[in-house]
């Protein structure tokens, strides 16, 4: 950071004051400036004194004029477009929505009580607690990782690049990442494939029991309508499986023949092209393989479990006599997992914070890297010599030494997060803006986005201003300390 001047001499209060003595020789052609008599002459100690004195006076008058000329345009803009509006906004915040009458603290009361603005304030609180801490931690990790590798510049460039693009472009980028359809959104595609790797998707979701058949729905699965006894063949008819989801290994169903124990069939009671009788295993109807079947005793305990074969048959050969309920448990029919609605009401704020971190972790990394580069190598070496392992060195030497940098990053990101607007505005779809809203966004929505309530909008702006005031005072104090 070569542009940051040495803090020791960075901010000096009156650097030019000490230079007044030079004036005797260093005068430029005075021109019309010289003629302009000013108040400076009045309090001159002994009237027109030495030539050096008049020259100094003239210099100082010229300096004032030049200062007015140099600083004037900037100052006018700052006073008119920044300073005066602060006062104006403060005034507006005590007026009604159209500014016509004085309403006292009504806007401030409304700000903390109306659901939208309260939501905004609470969301901002979440932002402030989570986003700077996570971004800084990641930045520290990345900085430590890249410090240890050659050619780390490439990674640094990659991590820092999001800083260059607009929140809008980041918003567009992440709308695509967060797309709810796992066929389009890369995040849900990843989440779904990880999920399906652990929980295999069921084959038969969405099916129904044949009306007037032997099955009735229960707890997401199905069970036999009445108790059955070993020896009675069981026919469990299901319908509603779309043709494209019929398992390719399914074979034509065959009615159970009866045999030892309890036997039965689970099949799709639907004849292609029509025909066939409900509840009867007709020719051309297929069995449903790999279905879990449970035999449940009177007391409700599962006494045996079986799986159907390719023709849909199952058997409990060793079942003792006594009535059982045959059950097809719910996990045969669980809906497939279709990913997370990232931009819906419940996940929207974490989702937007995630993008913010994607953008700002690189910033934190670069700052921390600069801090690490300035660390005294001896301290680290000494710690290692004393037998500290890498983690101990990191925890007890590196982190304390870079702590000032970490504080700067945290403070900077906190100020930044307080004012967050674009990202939320762009990323959150209209339907979840109420859930995602933050103070700066609410200020815009209330004042311009259809609300036109300048009173409440101004109160929100004043709140934002109040929240950054500590940072302002911190800056000024640091300035004073340095001078």
């Amino acid at each position: 950071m070569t542009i940051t001047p040495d803090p020791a001499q960075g901010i000096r209060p009156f650097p030019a004051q000490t230079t007044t003595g030079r004036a005797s020789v260093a005068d430029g052609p005075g021109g019309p400036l010289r003629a302009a008599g000013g108040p400076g002459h009045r309090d001159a100690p002994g009237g027109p004194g030495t030539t050096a004195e008049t020259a100094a006076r003239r210099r100082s008058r010229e300096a004032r004029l030049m200062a007015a000329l140099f600083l004037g345009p900037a100052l006018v803009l700052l006073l008119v477009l920044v300073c005066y509006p602060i006062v104006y906004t403060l005034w507006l915040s005590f007026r009604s929505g159209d500014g016509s009458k004085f309403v006292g603290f009504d806007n401030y009361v409304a700000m903390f009580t109306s659901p939208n603005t309260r939501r905004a304030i609470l969301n901002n609180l979440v932002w402030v607690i989570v986003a700077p801490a996570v971004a800084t931690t990641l930045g520290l990790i990345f900085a430590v990782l890249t410090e240890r590798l050659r050619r780390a510049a490439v990674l640094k460039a990659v991590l820092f690049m999001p800083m260059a693009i607009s929140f809008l472009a980041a918003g567009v980028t992440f709308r695509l990442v967060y797309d709810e359809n796992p066929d389009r959104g890369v995040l849900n595609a990843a989440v779904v494939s990880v999920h399906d790797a652990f929980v295999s998707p069921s084959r038969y979701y969405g099916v129904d029991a044949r009306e007037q058949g032997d099955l009735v729905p229960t707890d997401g699965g199905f069970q036999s309508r009445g108790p059955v006894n070993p020896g009675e063949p069981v026919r469990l008819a299901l319908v509603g499986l779309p043709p494209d989801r019929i398992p390719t290994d399914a074979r034509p169903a065959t009615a159970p023949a009866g045999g030892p124990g309890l036997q039965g069939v689970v099949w799709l009671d639907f004849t292609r092209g029509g025909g066939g009788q409900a509840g009867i295993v007709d020719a051309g109807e297929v069995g449903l393989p790999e279905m879990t079947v449970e035999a449940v005793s009177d007391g409700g305990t599962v006494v045996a479990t079986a799986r159907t074969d390719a023709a849909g048959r199952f058997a409990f050969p060793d079942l003792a006599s006594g009535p059982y309920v045959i059950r097809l448990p719910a996990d045969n029919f669980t809906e497939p997992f279709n990913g997370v609605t990232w931009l819906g009401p419940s996940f929207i704020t974490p989702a937007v914070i995630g993008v913010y971190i994607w953008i700002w972790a690189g910033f934190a990394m670069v700052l921390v890297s600069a801090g690490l580069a300035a660390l005294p190598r001896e301290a680290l070496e000494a710690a290692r010599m004393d037998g500290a392992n890498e983690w101990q060195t990191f925890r007890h030497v590196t982190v304390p030494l870079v702590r000032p940098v970490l504080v700067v990053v945290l403070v900077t990101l906190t100020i930044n997060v307080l004012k967050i607007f674009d990202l939320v505005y762009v990323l959150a779809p209209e339907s979840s803006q109420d859930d995602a809203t933050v103070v700066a966004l609410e200020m815009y929505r209330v004042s311009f986005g259809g609300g036109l309530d300048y009173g409440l909008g101004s109160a929100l702006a004043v709140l934002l201003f109040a929240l950054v005031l500590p940072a302002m005072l911190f800056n000024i104090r640091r300035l004073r300390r340095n001078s």
Partner: protein
Amino acid sequence: MSHATTDTVLELVPAGTARGGRPRPGPWARFMMRFGKALLRLLVVLIGAFWLLPTFGLAVASLRSSADNSATGWWTVFTAPAQLTLDNYAQVLQNERIVESLWNTVLITVPSTLLVVLLGALGAYALAWLDFPGRDWLFVLVVALIVVPVQVAIVPDARIFRVLGIYGEISAVVAFHVAFGLPFAIFLLRNFFLNIPRDMLEAARMDGAREMLIFARVVLPIGWPAIASLAIFQFLWVWNDLLVSLVFATSDNAPITYALREQMRSFSSNLDTIGPGAFLSMLVPLVVFFAFQRYFVQGVLAGSGK
């Protein structure tokens, strides 16, 4: 960055086994060191890939037809590279709204940057090297204004611009950007100018140069690195802005961010416009980023507190 530490890196290396006067690491330790290093490299590559993935995805999606994009994910391009087409870009470049808004972005960004640099440098020079009453307080004021959120000014400034008759014009957007860019610009440049050796200014004065000449011939050339960083920071700040133009620009004067935001209401249906549009809007910042990475980093670091 120093490479001296690369062999004392991993926790897998027992303390005291690195180089220097210490004992040489045994074969096991050396193996673990290499293994750990490979692991670290893998981790770093994964992080980098993870960070690039979103942008890469948008880039690929912007090169696919809208039919493809609504049916399948951009990653299917790896199995069917024939999907790639420049049609979206061709269409976006014929889309008057997008092209005009890109041009508006330029019309807003260039003057905003030049004015901030010019007025900021002049003001910073006055605050650094000219002697006048109240200078201290003015500088404190400037420092105080750095963190002021734009939200506290947008409603009143909208009224001011209306009174001036420029509300909705590009000039209003520029004026606002300049006003809010100045505090930081003055702060940054003043601190840099203060480090100019007094002797150089004195020498110029001895030669009879007036302040304006000193400013142009001595201060600007020496302050160049800071000015470059400031210019890049301000340029990107304005180029990427959405809020200020939403408030102060009419639709005719909208920059690209504004125009794309309008298009986003129904996202998945017009990804074929938004994707290439967003990429075109990113093009300039990315070029700036890669071309001036050093100044860019410094500018962003210095201006981050804004």
